């Protein structure tokens, strides 16, 4: 995993992380927030960034503490660590960005049971050293962030014809359905399918 190698090696690795090993698409994880939060770009960005921070902090903590956690109680311990960081993030978010916290609503505490965070802690951070866990966290988290932002962008554009609150195409009011549950499922499904098609054409070449 030569991420700190030359320029081309890093590029190849970035593509690897965003496309091949993207947590939402390849591992099918973290779908809950991806569908629910991406009604607009601001929410998506905030949620993705918060998840990235929580992921980063908890993988560091787990990686440091991995020698002291007994194998059999590891899941509750990891959940405790993750929920501690989520609570901290929640408090910071409520203090600094109360409107954003209000619009994210119930999904901020739900970061604690986000499959991505627990999966990374369990399968990677508990077995690898600090540096590799940090790299893994950043790449997984940014893959997730990218997915959320793309989804949020599409949904906001089609759903309410605004980007970050600014209207784009004149009088077009937007399809409201896309802002609701249907849009979330649909958008994610289309992105998925596009990525699958992209992957298979790449393989054939």
């Amino acid at each position, binding site marked *: 995993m030569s991420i700190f190698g030359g320029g081309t090696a890093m590029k190849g690795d970035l593509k690897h992380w965003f496309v091949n090993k993207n947590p939402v698409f390849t591992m099918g994880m973290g779908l809950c927030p991806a569908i629910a939060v991406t009604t607009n770009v601001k929410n998506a960005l905030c949620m993705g960034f918060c998840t990235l921070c929580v992921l980063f902090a908890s993988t560091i903590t787990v990686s440091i503490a991995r020698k002291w956690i007994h194998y059999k109680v590891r899941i509750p311990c990891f959940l405790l660590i993750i929920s501690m960081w989520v609570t901290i993030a929640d408090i910071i978010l409520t203090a600094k960005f109360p409107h954003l916290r209000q619009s994210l609503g119930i999904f901020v505490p739900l970061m604690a049971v986000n499959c991505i965070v627990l999966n990374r802690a369990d399968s990677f951070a508990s077995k690898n050293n600090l540096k590799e866990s940090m790299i893994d966290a950043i790449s997984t988290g940014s893959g997730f962030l990218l997915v959320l932002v793309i989804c949020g962008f599409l949904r906001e554009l089609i759903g309410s014809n605004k980007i970050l609150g600014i209207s784009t195409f004149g009088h077009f009011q937007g399809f409201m359905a896309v802002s609701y549950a*249907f849009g979330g499922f649909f958008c994610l499904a289309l992105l998925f399918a596009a990525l699958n*098609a992209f992957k298979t054409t790449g393989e054939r070449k």
Partner: protein
Amino acid sequence: MLVNNIVFVLMIGVCPFCALPKKMSQSLGMGFTVVGVMALTGTISYAINRYVLMQNNLFYLQTMVFIMVIVITVQLIELSVEKFWPSAYESISSFLPSITTNCAVLAVCIMANNALSNQHHASSFAKSTVINVGCGFGYLLAVILMAGIKRKLEMTEIPKAFRGLPIALLSAGLVSLAFMGFSGLTFIPLFGG
């Protein structure tokens, strides 16, 4: 349960949902287990929230405490089912880990406990119980629907890019569109909450 269905309208609990079992009996088992877990954890966390956390102004510990409650409850349920109903245990043992980290269970705990901070105590226990059980049944409904859809999907030709997760998400999306049609319904004005 219909108006604010936890999967199709509130979009919570989707993670294990798309990779769910296809057989009707398995999904029934999972659905009922989730109902039981939601009801139990909702009640316990409500009690803890009201008598311990609220009294001592420890509101911010909510997330951590609820997760611990869920983990412990699921473990207890697993142990007791293993002891008393071994046959049932075999069928649901594979779901229990995913139920532990299911967004839906935690969401129900939090939603049920938000009812606490707004109302008179006597009525809010009833309200939160209704939320617990109702969301559980909503999840059960969602699981059954998806299992049925998946069985039908197995017999059709799906374009290669759409196989697996995308088509499940698409069909869930169409079902959620249908559920939007329920949005005018009010049986009892408790679900709006």
